[in-house]
């Protein structure tokens, strides 16, 4: 773990009554710097916060946004909950599977894309919606998805 990440985690831990409360913020910060939250890194977080490793492990494996397995450079999370489903999200999920040649939950062999279908992202008025890494993409259709995939590939080349 990098020193500045450790410093940040220690600073955040000071906002809480217990260091255990800093497990979630620590995992979120560390995740930005590693491929996945594997066992060694969880141990490091536990040591830094001076808490049992199991406390870190149980948090890392409970919350959806913590990845204990690597995800692609672009993590595509397509909402398929009711409002998006009514806006044909299922067809878009199938379109993405065809375009990326992976099924949901999978990652492309080049490590570029991971595709997951997710629960409501809170953007139902602009359905269908997907989140790619930190950004929302709204009012989607197949054409818009194709354009975005081209854009993501270009971003990686530059």
């Amino acid at each position: 773990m990098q020193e500045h990440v450790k410093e940040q985690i220690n600073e955040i831990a000071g906002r809480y009554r217990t260091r255990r409360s800093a497990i979630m913020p620590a995992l979120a910060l560390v995740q930005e710097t590693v491929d996945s939250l594997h066992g060694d890194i969880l141990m490091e977080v536990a040591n830094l916060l001076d808490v049992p490793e199991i406390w870190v492990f149980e948090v890392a494996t409970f919350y959806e946004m913590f990845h204990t397995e690597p995800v692609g450079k672009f993590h595509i999370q397509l909402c398929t909950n009711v409002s998006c489903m009514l806006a044909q999200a299922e067809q878009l999920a199938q379109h993405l599977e065809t375009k990326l040649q992976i099924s949901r939950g999978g990652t492309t062999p080049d490590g570029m894309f991971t595709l997951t279908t997710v629960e409501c992202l809170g953007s139902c008025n602009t359905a269908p919606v997907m989140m790619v890494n930190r950004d929302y993409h709204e009012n989607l259709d197949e054409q818009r998805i194709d354009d975005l995939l081209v854009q993501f590939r270009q971003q990686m080349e530059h």
Partner: protein
Amino acid sequence: MNEKVLLRNIDTPGSHNLAAYQTAGGYRSVASALADFTPGELIELVKTAGLRGRGGAGFPTGVKWGFVPRDSGKPVYLCCNADEAEPGTFKDRALMENDPHMVIEGILIAAYAIGATTTYVYIRGEYTVSIERMEAAIAEAYSNGLLGENILNSGFSHDVHVHRGAGAYICGEETALLESIEGRRAQPKFKPPFPAVSGLYGFPTVINNVETLSCLPHIVERGADWFNSIGPERSPGPKLYCVSGLVRKPGLYELPMGTSLRELLDEHAGGPRSGRLKAVIPGGVSAPMIPANDIDIGMDFDSLAAAGSMLGSAGVIVLDDTACIVRVALRIMEFFNHESCGKCTPCREGNAWAAKVLRRLEAGRGQREDLDQLAFLCDGIFGNSFCALGDAAAWSLGAALKHFRDEFERHINDGKCPYH
């Protein structure tokens, strides 16, 4: 034209900045609250205003505050519930992204009333813009003497921190939210003790929703009588309605509490997309659906409860006559199955089982006994779990079966989904 209260700044360029908020009169209410009110007077003001929690339960906010023991010598915490994840809901996101200082001002008023030293704003992890805007607004407030020590020379001090969620619907449940801030798996706890007595780290804690807190600056500024005069007597105030689904003008609408569902749909949201309404889910997928014939009903806590549904988070999902009720019910049960924390058996196993039966029905492989099976599962889940997640699932499925049994039967008789 209805006056905008909660959304009054939303169209101002840079509305999320302190300068814009102060230009519009922001932070005057908290100045007034700190100078002119005792904490007890503020609690009375909010009780008199009749403000009820906008997170879904509709519990009177002032009464909730009143449960915090006074002068116990223990630290008191405030948590702002911004874990907005009820499908169909996007109101708190709009407030945090566009008017984060209004949320902070509301937090300060609540914190002063209950004597809290620290607030944690629990924002769902997916809301990256909300998190950035709230963190930036908190930093601005600190550097302008609106947070920290001796706020506005009142002698009152308060700290606010964002706690970022990580993708678990159950964190919206208040005891699960507290477990999550404590660094644990978000599994609801038995009540009592209620959080007001023993909450975060075992200390008195109040959990209020973003929209609830956002009402406070306006109540302080304009008074309890003004607030109380909007909407129904027992459920007053301005209200945000999130409209989505098969509707012509999906969006966020601010209207008085108690506005009729028909008016919301037809006069504001443009009506059902196909022109022919089938049903409406009025308060996020936890709220039982209402058939088209019953939409002459007030969108407030009591009217919807009397009709066997609930206002919930006011996530209004419109189903026109092209929507398949079995498919909608299936997707709702898949959601609850996915989000069940796994602690209670009826919820963990019952939702999975119900989703399996619905999947079979939607695929055209259903049998008559399946409908009895679903009713049996609803009975078994309802009332038998720690928190409301299982109840919501059972209630929601029960309403679909009750109002649209013919559609379920058609799937069985035709051996296929009539819509797909």
